[in-house]
């Protein structure tokens, strides 16, 4: 397979500073709409489980191209907020709009296709798949081949020059009859997946089972897998949990580079330093309610926020 | 790569070893004994449910055939009886039939014992020209709708049996309101259909049950409102036993009549006290208790001849007569059996162009369950 040649990439040692990524990632950038426009709106969303109110009239929006932080003490409803956005829960009242389209009540995989991807607080990779395969599952979200297409490969497309096979006979055949879209997608997917692994800095262990990867690699693999679905909006759920300061630095850099590719990023994080350092804007939740919103400076000075965090000093660490 | 080259070495050695060993010889897949016209070494197959729930209807006929072979006196010929268990399942019967068909030393087959397996295999035997003489397959279509050259049977088909049962119900029992129950299976349903046809207005209601059913409450409540003066059940022993018990428990005392599916040695034991007086109809003539056959059978197998033992004996006798007559090929046997006439244990044997025994040669008997054994009651005509 072609990915054999891709191995190597940026070698890095877990825990140490990841070498700056030098390869060309233009191929990874996505085509995003006009910057600064509203991308996602959480419109007065309330979510109740029985008598418990998990989200109470939460209302905020994300603009295209920004890095938005979502913070709050444990149990404030941050992850629940993600779950509402990604279709796991349907809000009791209010609605979620993405690109102006109501998405609350839509099934999770449909929401992903619309352009929202996320990572999980407690890592949820596919443990028996290799790192590359995990990312490939993400790439598949953008692939069009149907099950019948996989079986019979009847859908042919005209390949570009560099997609043509080397073997003379096969090359001639492909020129006349075109190539199966499935084969091209599969090949393209592998190349893209490998690029993504390089982008997050874990390409050196692309063929290892994800369950055998070190913790930091698993976190980054989740990000790569989410990026593979080419989301306009990427939601990171506590991406720095369990990281040491050096790794956190890397992560901040990674988040900025993700934004530079054209993605909008929403981060849930406990670590105030990271959030204040990387985000453009911050929303603060407490007990399912929005208590503050603003630039990192504004939020850091907001007395309500300080009170909320001082009230639970353990979690603010 | 070093490791893999080792693999190829191993593979090469294995193939050489295989070639060397192959020189050792080949197996005789014909299963011994080449058939040639001169020496008379033949096999006769018997196929049927030799194991499984319905074996008790088949095994006596196999024993009967064995007895006929043991009693046969012929210096020229060596005949063995090969038993094939099909569990009564058509899917299991086809490989057996293909095996028999492909082995030229088989000159005939006794069976199939049941209609389903016979339906599935008769074209195989027909293609190979193996003569079949069935001791107990009674489905009408086997000879009437879809006859093949090689199939013969010693029992009348369901049409006649159904008529005989209906006649018994109306004439002997004097019933005018018969409740007909069947087991929805290939055996019970067509038989019950024939009974229904012949009964005409004398049938009050028909109900269908399942194989494996034990709770017949819905059928019983239908009976209670129909108030029949006789009940016919087309099915097997396993369901007849709980059905009878529940009929009697409900206080319905109408006579109970069953088809030959109930004609087995274990009927009396299975139905117990509730089955006292129940009648089983069978196209099999009773074997005189003092006859030599019954005595020989008892001596050989340690029990009184059961269902279709005489038919099994007769089927074997037909084949052996063919060999006595000098038949040495499948064609000879087929020609001989087609024209055969003779006095059998069960009846006067002859086969019409469809392979059926002429109707006038057949006798139907009603057997009554008395104290756990089936006692011949009366002969009935269709």
């Amino acid at each position, binding site marked *: 397979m072609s990915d054999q040649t891709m191995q190597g990439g940026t070698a890095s040692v877990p825990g140490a500073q990841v070498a700056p990524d030098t390869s060309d990632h233009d191929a990874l950038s996505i085509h995003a709409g006009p910057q600064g426009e509203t991308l996602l709106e959480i419109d007065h969303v309330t979510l109740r489980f029985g008598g418990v109110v998990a989200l109470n009239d939460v209302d905020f929006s994300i603009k295209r191209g920004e890095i938005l932080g979502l913070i709050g003490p444990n149990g404030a409803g941050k992850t629940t907020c993600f779950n509402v956005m990604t279709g796991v829960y349907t809000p009791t009242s209010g609605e979620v709009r993405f690109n102006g389209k109501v998405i609350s009540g839509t099934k999770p995989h449909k929401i992903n296709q619309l352009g929202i991807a996320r990572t999980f607080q407690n890592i949820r990779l596919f443990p028996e798949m290799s790192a590359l395969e995990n990312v490939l599952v993400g790439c598949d979200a953008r692939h069009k081949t149907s099950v019948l297409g996989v079986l019979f490969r009847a859908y042919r497309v005209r390949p570009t020059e560099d997609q043509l096979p080397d073997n003379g006979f096969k090359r001639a055949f492909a020129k006349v009859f075109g190539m199966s879209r499935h084969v091209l997608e599969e090949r393209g997917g592998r190349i893209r997946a490998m690029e993504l692994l390089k982008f997050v800095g874990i390409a050196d262990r692309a063929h290892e089972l994800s369950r055998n990867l070190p913790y930091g690699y698993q976190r980054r693999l989740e990000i790569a897998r989410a990026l593979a679905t080419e989301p306009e909006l990427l939601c990171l759920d506590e991406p720095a949990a369990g990281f040491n300061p050096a790794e956190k630095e890397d992560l901040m850099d990674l988040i900025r580079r993700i934004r530079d590719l054209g993605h909008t990023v929403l981060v849930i994080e406990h670590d105030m330093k990271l959030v204040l350092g990387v985000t453009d804007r911050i929303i603060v939740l407490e007990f399912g309610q929005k208590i503050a919103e603003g630039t990192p400076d504004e939020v850091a000075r907001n007395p309500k926020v300080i009170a909320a965090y001082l009230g639970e000093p353990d979690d603010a660490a | 790569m070093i490791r893999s080259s080792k693999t190829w070495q191993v593979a090469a050695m294995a193939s050489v070893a295989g070639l060397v060993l192959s020189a050792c010889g080949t197996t005789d897949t014909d299963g011994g004994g080449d058939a040639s016209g001169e020496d008379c070494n033949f096999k006769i197959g018997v196929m049927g449910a030799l*194991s499984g729930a319905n074996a008790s209807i088949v095994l006596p006929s196999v024993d009967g055939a064995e007895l006929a072979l043991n009693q046969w006196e012929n210096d020229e010929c060596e005949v063995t009886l090969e038993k094939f268990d099909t569990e009564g399942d058509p899917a299991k019967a086809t490989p057996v039939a293909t095996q028999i068909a492909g082995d030229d030393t088989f000159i005939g087959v006794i069976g199939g014992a049941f209609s389903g397996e016979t339906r599935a295999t008769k074209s195989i035997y027909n293609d190979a020209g193996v003569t079949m003489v069935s001791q107990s397959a009674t489905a009408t279509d086997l000879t009437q709708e879809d006859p093949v050259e090689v199939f013969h049977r010693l029992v009348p088909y369901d049409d006649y049996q159904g008529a005989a049962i209906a006649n018994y119900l109306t004439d002997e029992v004097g019933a005018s309101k018969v409740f007909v129950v069947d087991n929805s299976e290939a055996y019970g349903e067509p038989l019950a259909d024939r009974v229904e046809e012949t009964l005409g207005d004398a049938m009050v209601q028909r*109900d269908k049950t399942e194989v494996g059913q*034990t709770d017949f*409450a819905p059928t019983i409540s239908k009976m209670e409102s129909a108030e029949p003066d006789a009940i016919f059940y087309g099915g097997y*022993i396993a369901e007849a*036993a709980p059905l009878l018990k529940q009929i009697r428990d409900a206080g319905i005392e109408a006579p109970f009549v069953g088809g030959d599916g109930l004609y087995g040695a274990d009927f009396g034991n299975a139905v117990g006290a509730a089955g006292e007086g129940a009648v089983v109809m069978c196209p099999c003539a009773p074997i005189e208790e003092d006859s030599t056959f019954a005595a020989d059978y008892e001596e050989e197998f340690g029990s009184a001849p059961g269902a279709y033992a005489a038919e099994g004996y007769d089927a074997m006798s037909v084949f052996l007569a063919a060999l006595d007559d000098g038949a040495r090929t499948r064609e000879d046997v087929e020609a001989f059996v087609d024209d055969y006439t003779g006095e059998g244990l069960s009846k006067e044997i002859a086969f019409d162009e469809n392979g059926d025994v002429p109707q006038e040669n057949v006798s139907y008997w009603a057997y009554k369950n008395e104290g756990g054994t089936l006692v011949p009651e009366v002969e009935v005509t269709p």
Partner: protein
Amino acid sequence: MDFDALISGLDRHTLDGITRGSIYALVALGYTMVYGVMKLINFAHSEVFMVGTWAVLGVYTVLGVGAGESLGIVIAATLLALVGAMVASAGTALAVERIAYRPLRKKGAPPLIFLITGIGCSMVLVELFGQVFEVFFGPPFGRVTVNIPSVLETKELFTIPGIDLTITNTRVIIIVGAVLMMLALDTFVNKSRLGRGVRAVAQDPDTASLMGVNQNRVIMLVFVLGGAMAGVAALLYTIQYDITKFDIGFIIGLKAFTAAVLGGIGNLRGALVGGLLLGIAEVYASTIWSSEWANVTAFVVLVVVLMFRPTGLLGESLGKARA
């Protein structure tokens, strides 16, 4: 299609259905208890029931009793048969657990493996009675239907006036017996100390073992209880139908399992509701059409119920059996 027959005898058919369903429900308890605690389908449970019917036959044979005994002997023999069937069935269930399931549990095998092993155990038990014992002991073992003497003969007890519904003693014994056993089991699981252990393991095995509940003991207890209920069902079955056979377990087991799922597998009261509903549905369908459609009706009812209530009528969970 005979709806008139159904309507005109609705009381009678419902009673028939309840009788049939009572036995399903008792057998269903075994499936439900094991599922509730271990989250697996014990496919050999149908044979646990079958062994019980043979035990009844064995007890009657040893005692030498038959039809028409005096009342005292009838009661004594039936009680002995009850004990015999419960012991035999519980013992079989326990043996299956110890021999087949425990090694798998040690390996942490997924449910599918338990399923295949259960099918294997079921075949072994069927063949023991249909083949192996016949070779060693001869009749009554083997592949034939065996009559069990009607020690407890069916007698009319009384007729409900007005609707003209005759009640027999066997019906009363079956329905009352089934309900009593179920109440006893329900009380045991909910009230006793051992029962608390069962519920604890059902809710959260890990926490339960941390709290000092011996999981193996609980699982054994569950198999024994389920087996004993199948034993009761076996006695009631023989009283009603008078027969046994090496393969009678299969269909009853299938129906009982359907009943358990219908009511909400893992839920004791669900087993009762599911069993009765299934019995009634089958009898109604058999009356409207005929018995050949009873099984189809049973499964259609199951599919329809699951479509609207994906975890059965009463929902699952042995732990929350009180709810």
